[in-house]
């Protein structure tokens, strides 16, 4: 398979958990804890799926998503958003910004895997 997932998340333990879950399924996982470096990575090499935390230092996940949707090459890139603030307002904001799928922390590992697979078109 060798499909690539870009994980943008600032919590080390969660990065490790997601990486573990996806790697075990054969995904190649790149991680960034900061929006700016993540955008550069996307420009450098387009991932198949992006997993995006809503609450990041400096630039929030919503802003990053908006940037992604504002660029031609990433307009249709599948983005799965994670948020810890389980509020409907966040979901609405994410959908407005053009999110592909949306999950609330904590999540079940299989769920993450399924959704990433679905987004990647498997």
């Amino acid at each position: 398979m060798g499909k690539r997932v870009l994980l943008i998340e600032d919590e080390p333990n969660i990065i490790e958990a997601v990486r573990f879950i996806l790697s075990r399924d054969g995904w190649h996982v790149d991680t960034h804890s900061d929006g700016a470096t993540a955008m550069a990575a996307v420009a450098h090499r387009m991932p198949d799926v992006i997993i995006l935390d809503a609450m990041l230092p400096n630039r929030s996940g919503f802003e990053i998503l908006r940037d992604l949707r504002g660029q031609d090459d990433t307009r249709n890139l599948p983005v799965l958003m994670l948020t810890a603030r389980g509020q409907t307002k966040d979901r609405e904001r994410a959908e407005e910004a053009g999110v592909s799928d949306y999950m609330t922390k904590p999540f079940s590992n299989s769920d993450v895997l399924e959704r990433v697979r679905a987004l990647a078109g498997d």
Partner: protein
Amino acid sequence: MVPFNFLVAVCLGYVAILFLVAFWAERRAAAGKDGWLRSPYIYTLSLSVYCTAWTFYGAVGYAARSGLEFLTIYLGPTAIMIGWWLLLRKLVRIGQSQRITSVADLISSRFGKSTVLGVIVTLLAVVGTTPYIALQLQSVTLSFSVFAAQSSEAWTPPSLNATALWVAGGLAAFTIIFGTRKIDSNERHHGVVMAIAVEAVVKLFALIAVGVFVVWGIAGGVGGVMERIDASPIAQWQVTNGRWIGLTFLSAAAFLCLPRMFQVLVVENADERHLSTASWAFPAYLLAMSLFVLPIAVIGLEVLPAGANPDLFVLTLPLSMGQEGLAMLSFLGGFSSATSMVIVASIALATMVSNHIVMPIWLRLQPKDVSVSGDVRSVLIVSRRASIAAVLALGYMYYVMSGGGAALAAIGLISFVGVAQFLPAMLGGIFWRGANGRGAAVGLLLGAAIWAYSLFLPSFGAGAILSEQLLAEGPWGVGWLRPQALFGIEGLDPVVHAVLWSMLLNTVTFVGVSLFTFPNALERLQGAQFINVFHLSRETKGWQASRVESEDLLIMAQRIIGGRDAQRLFADAANKQGKVGYLPDPTPEFLEKLERELAGSVGAATAHAMVGQIVGRASVSVEDLMAVADETQQMMEYSNQLEAKSDELARTARKLREANEKLTALSEQKDTFLSQISHELRTPMTSIRAFAEILQDPSLEHDDTKRYADIIFRETIRLTRLLDDLLDLSVLENGTVALDISAGDLGALIDRSISAAALTGRLTIKRNPAREVRVIETDQDRLAQVFINLIKNAEKYCDADKPELKISVRSVGDVLQVDFVDNGKGISPADSEVIFEKFSRLSDGARAGGAGLGLAICREIVLNLGGEIAYLPGQGGGAFRVSLPSRVALAAE
């Protein structure tokens, strides 16, 4: 025999003399030599226009028919004059102070300068006076005819109508020439008044001459007259009580209300004091006029043939005795009576018609934006002259159409009843403040209607205007509406009947409507001026004038700008004038200043008017101004109250808005807080859950298993600590924390805190133990919690290569300051404002695990201990200062 031409020549000569007298009087008045013209006796004589040809000739006829009843016509005016102090004095004062031009003007002006009332009164006056003028024309032509009948057939007198026409034309000319010389109808017509006075003397002299001739020439003295009276058909008292009282009342009312009487009594009055002379002199004149009426009537009845017209006894009696000179004099007396009445009545009516009908219409027809001031003078004169001509023409037409005769002879009393309708409005207007224009109009209209229906229209004879059937059975057969038996009361004399019902219903509706409707502002102001006329026009004399004015000004000013300010203003002005006290002279400078001061409160126009009214002694009384000032003050107070209320409302609204904003902010804070708590709780739980699932994977290697279990453990601790912090914060924020106050050494406390912070050794701590030796009375554990937090923060966030934390202690008064300063790059000013908020995150993302509750908790603890914690900028690194009272107990108390 008197040749007709001679008679005409005498008439013309007499009229020429009158012209000369009038002209001479005008000249003298114009030259300022009018002292003699302004004599009270001239005024008294001018009142004699009351005695018209109807009274000159008619009184004798009246006496020949009804005995002494004719006296009622003189007793009414006598009562009014004798009682001048009660009524006339006020009427004249009002007339002068308000510059009243006619009875219509009086009533219109009193009731708010009402155009409608002016028109009603004018029309009623015209309707009531026109037949009366016709009556004068008739008497003159009748007297002509007497001479014509006596003369030979050598000359043929022109027809009676033509005579009347010539008389009317001549009177119109005289009246126009002398009655419209002045535009201001309020100015005296000196020429006219003088001519009237001369005529008054002529008619009195003529009647007395005839009387003397009759008593001493025919009857042989007083005793003989008395015997002949006792032997005459009118030997017995035959006046009914109703007519005695009713006609006296009627003549009194007419004396006040007749347009011509109002003209001479009020409008032509040059000096109020003339009234006191006229009060006895005019009744004396009337007495003299009536003294010989009864003898002439009795002798006439005795001497002249049975069919002779008693109305002409004054003329026919001397003629029958061959006394042609006396007859001539008598003729001139009657001519004088007629002409003086017609002249004054037409002036009065013309003024009313011109001022209340023609001018309003003319002004209304003018384009609104055109200034009319230049044109009004000529228009006024033309309209006045045309009105005089029109009034006389009306009188002539009435004379011709009525055909003379008995119907006209009765018109005197009928006319009286018509104009007497003004009386309720007039008296109510000057004595009763509650009277209003609506009441006056309704009363006048109803009274006039009853007069017309019950007296005026029936006077033309049955079948002339009102049908016989209507007179006998009432309209549509309704008996109680019969014109001469209203409400079913029969047997009353028609005149008394009409007086009773018209005056009664007029008065009742006037009062009733006034009671139940409200006057407008102008009516109230005018009413006050009319009723309080004596309080306002007090004549100020000599040196007192200025003081009285100043005092009035002060009183007024106090009501407008308040006592203290007004007194200071006046005292300052008095001081500047070199006077002691509060009453400066009303110099132009002072008045200007005062006006400016008042204008600040009531506006410039009002202030100017108020000051002007007091100083200028204009026709508004001081009391009225006080009333206006009071009203203004009340209005200002009211508006102040309103303002205060609206201020209060605005304050309340602002408070509500603030409360709402606070609630919204609180709600947002709560939302933010909850979502942050959610985030802080969910993040460790995500890790825990994810790794817990991963651990179930049997293929996991041992190292990984151990590592992942360790993560779960640490995240659990993180979760617990978060919950602890939240609970801690909650307790601290609610102020429900139980403090455990004890005395302890500060140095020891810092020692304990450093060791509890469990530093990794990377951070160097610098202290000055000597300064830390002091006892602090506080909750030792809680303060240590703060210190620990600050030390840990320094360790976490100090980004220097060799991190250092300097802890320094100092005392400022009662306050103990403990500073924690590290050598890192510190916190940006923007961040330093939010670091003490819950879940605050620094913008650079520098964060090491904590949920952002530490400093919030620190702040709550320090506040609970009675101190405060602040970030100190400009210390070369992150710096926090904890300030505490030396004894927390002090602060707690």
